[in-house]
């Protein structure tokens, strides 16, 4: 159980002069400035103290001191500490030790900054292109400040991503980019030996919308919550809350207690409908459409309730910096009625699912990942909780009004897809419980929105995490001049979880691949939020009917 001082002392003792300084703007936030030489050892030391890797943030600081910055962030879940290890490298020689060999989940973050900032990581096991389109010109790093936000180089023909070599004796089965089970574009190349999956390569990031660059160049702080909300189709309030919290932390704004309760309510309402949606999708993926129809039927009153309260079914637009926009108290009766109804119907659905042997056979022992591997790969959310890892940002790092409500964090250790089904059903009941408490305890007369006029100081770092229905969302913000952020990094829960998918797929049957991929509740748009523009690329070739037939019959890929 390290306290923030213990972490400081430990690091100072071990690494002495390579630690350049500490900064603790809040009792729960620790920023450590380190020399780039020892970055790998320091990150390992932090992990050894019991931390969980979250995400890395790269930023362009060329205009100020001709360096590129990199922040590795870690979370001490038992002690409510976020530890951010900051380092920088000269822009003309941005070489850095990779931490991926020890912390496999950092793989994507590092590949991201190879693409976007031109950093180089020594010892990275898979230094391939991740974010940018295949025909994006080499040497143009879109996240650097010198590159304009609307740069659109002409498309090039005949370039494609080189997939990993298939293991010997295996055949490649492509799933995606467009596939009925995926709902959003992403490409999985699954290597199969007979029916058994022996490996998997992923090529995604096909829905880059350049939101981070856009929001740090085109709009000001106040407009971003509405754009953040549109990062994801399901967990909109989560991103808006997380962004608003990070700005509030950086600027030192305290919002009213009532606004915090309303935020809690919005997040839980979102969790209820998201879990019901996922339950339906999961039923659909294993070919059990009755579950799909009925969990979505139960979900519909929740959507109508949201429409009544906020003015829209999904993009609520409730959360802004400094508070919330609308009150929920006038709808107290409606909310309680809908929650009673949802709870009653969900119990019926739960009983039907738990007793159904077909669902058990399709999900039990499918997508097995051991608890040790889950911790090693830093998986989050229901995926981790189904594998016996007891983490929940709502309880571990309380934000909004979560410190005042009582709820349980369901954890099961089946380590498979069945566990994620169970966790999500149980969490829905917990959410209903929280909503009732919020309505009971909420202050009645308090201002909803705190107005502030002082400019926000530039170059303040802040980090905020929120538990989304699918896992933990992390927003890292560096404030800038001109009333807009200098760097804003969004890490959606699918980002770490998708990296664990090859692990889950290993040694499973090909027919189970859809439900395994579906079990993490993948949200590719959240994950792909980065970069600048989306270019349509890839090789185009038109096959005639005969060619296609010949190819299919020759059984060669």
């Amino acid at each position, binding site marked *: 159980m390290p306290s923030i001082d213990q972490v400081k002392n430990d690091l100072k003792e071990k690494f002495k002069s390579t630690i350049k300084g500490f900064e603790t703007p809040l009792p729960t936030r620790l920023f450590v400035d380190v020399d780039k030489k020892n970055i790998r050892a320091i990150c390992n030391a932090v992990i050894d103290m019991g931390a969980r890797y979250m995400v890395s943030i790269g930023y362009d600081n060329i205009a100020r001191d001709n360096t590129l910055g990199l922040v590795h962030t870690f979370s001490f879940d038992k002690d409510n500490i976020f530890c951010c290890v900051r380092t920088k490298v000269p822009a003309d020689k941005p070489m850095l030790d990779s931490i991926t060999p020890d912390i496999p989940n950092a793989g994507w973050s590092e590949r991201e900054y190879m693409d976007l900032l031109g950093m180089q990581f020594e010892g990275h096991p898979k230094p391939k*292109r991740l974010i940018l389109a*295949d*025909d994006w*010109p*080499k*040497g*143009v790093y879109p996240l650097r400040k010198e590159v*304009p936000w*609307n*740069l*659109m*180089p*002409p498309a*090039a023909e*005949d*370039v*494609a991503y080189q997939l990993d070599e298939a293991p010997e004796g295996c055949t490649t089965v492509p799933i995606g980019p467009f596939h009925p089970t995926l709902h959003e574009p992403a490409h999985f190349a699954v290597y199969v030996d007979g029916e058994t999956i022996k490996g998997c390569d992923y090529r995604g990031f096909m829905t880059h919308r350049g939101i981070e660059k856009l929001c740090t160049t*085109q*709009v*000001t702080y*106040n*407009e*971003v919550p*509405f*754009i953040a909300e*549109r990062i994801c189709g399901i967990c909109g309030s989560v991103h808006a809350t997380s962004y608003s919290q990070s700005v509030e932390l950086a600027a030192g704004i305290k919002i009213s207690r009532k606004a915090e309760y309303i935020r809690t309510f919005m997040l839980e309402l979102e969790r209820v409908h998201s879990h019901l949606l996922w339950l339906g999708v999961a039923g659909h993926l294993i070919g059990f459409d*009755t579950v799909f129809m*009925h969990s979505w*039927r139960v979900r*519909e009153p929740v959507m109508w309730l949201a*429409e*009544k309260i906020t*003015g*829209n079914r999904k*993009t609520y*637009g409730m959360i802004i910096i400094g508070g919330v*926009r*609308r009150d929920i108290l006038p709808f107290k009766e409606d909310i309680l009625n809908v929650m009673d109804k949802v709870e009653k*119907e969900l119990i*019926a*659905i739960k*009983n*039907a699912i738990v*007793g*159904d*042997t*077909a669902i058990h056979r399709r999900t039990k022992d499918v997508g097995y990942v051991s608890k040790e591997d889950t911790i090693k790969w830093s998986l989050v959310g229901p995926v981790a909780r189904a594998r016996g890892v007891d983490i929940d940002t709502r309880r571990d790092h309380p934000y909004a009004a979560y410190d005042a409500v009582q709820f349980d964090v369901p954890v099961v250790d089946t380590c498979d897809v069945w566990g994620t089904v169970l966790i999500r059903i149980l969490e829905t009941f917990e959410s209903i419980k929280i909503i009732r408490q919020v309505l009971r305890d909420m202050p009645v007369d308090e201002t909803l929105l705190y107005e502030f006029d002082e*400019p926000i100081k530039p170059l303040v770092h802040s980090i905020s995490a929120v538990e989304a229905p699918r896992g933990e969302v992390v927003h890292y913000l560096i404030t800038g001049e*001109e*009333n*807009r952020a200098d760097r804003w990094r969004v890490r959606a829960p699918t980002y770490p979880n998708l990296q664990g998918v090859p692990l889950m797929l290993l040694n499973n049957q090909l027919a189970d691949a859809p439900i395994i991929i579906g079990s993490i509740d993948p949200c590719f748009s959240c994950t792909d939020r980065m970069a600048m*523009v989306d270019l349509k690329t890839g*090789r185009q070739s038109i096959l005639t009917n005969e060619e296609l037939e010949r190819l299919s019959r020759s059984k060669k890929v």
Partner: protein
Amino acid sequence: MWLTSKIKQLFVVAKPGTVTLPYPFEPRPVPENYRGQPYWDHHKCIGCGGCANHCPARTILVRDLCNELRVMMYDGSRCTYCGRCADLCPEKAITMTPQYELATDDKRDINETMELFMLTCQRCGRCFDHEIKNAIDKLAYLGYRYDNLEMRAVIPVSSQTFDKELYEKTKTYKRPEKIGE
């Protein structure tokens, strides 16, 4: 076990009956404070540009044609219906109507343009020192970019319109290798 769960499911399924709404024939009424298509009341609007300043999607564009004439245009094709403009309007000239059936084959159908006659200063005869330092700039928080009607071209065409030099340069960039090379 298998049979009992199927019978349970039968009850779950049979109970609610038909839930599908007869939508296109009977449009569902929207709740009271629904955020549908915004509407500008040109009688109330004073042309302050506050809505344009706070629009997250930058759909409201402002242009001064001469000293007295200000054109405000709302581009509905990019609107996200957040309703921020209606919240902030000092004159309550903007209302979020309950209109949600906005599908159209011509996107100009959902645009709205207003030509506002602005008052001029009695001393100097001018309204604003516009283009360089207009009222939006003064009202605005820092960071607002002066929009104009032509700049709408930036959205679909992107850098081909704007960064001519850079665009030329990108043509000579080195590409990743072609397949099979």
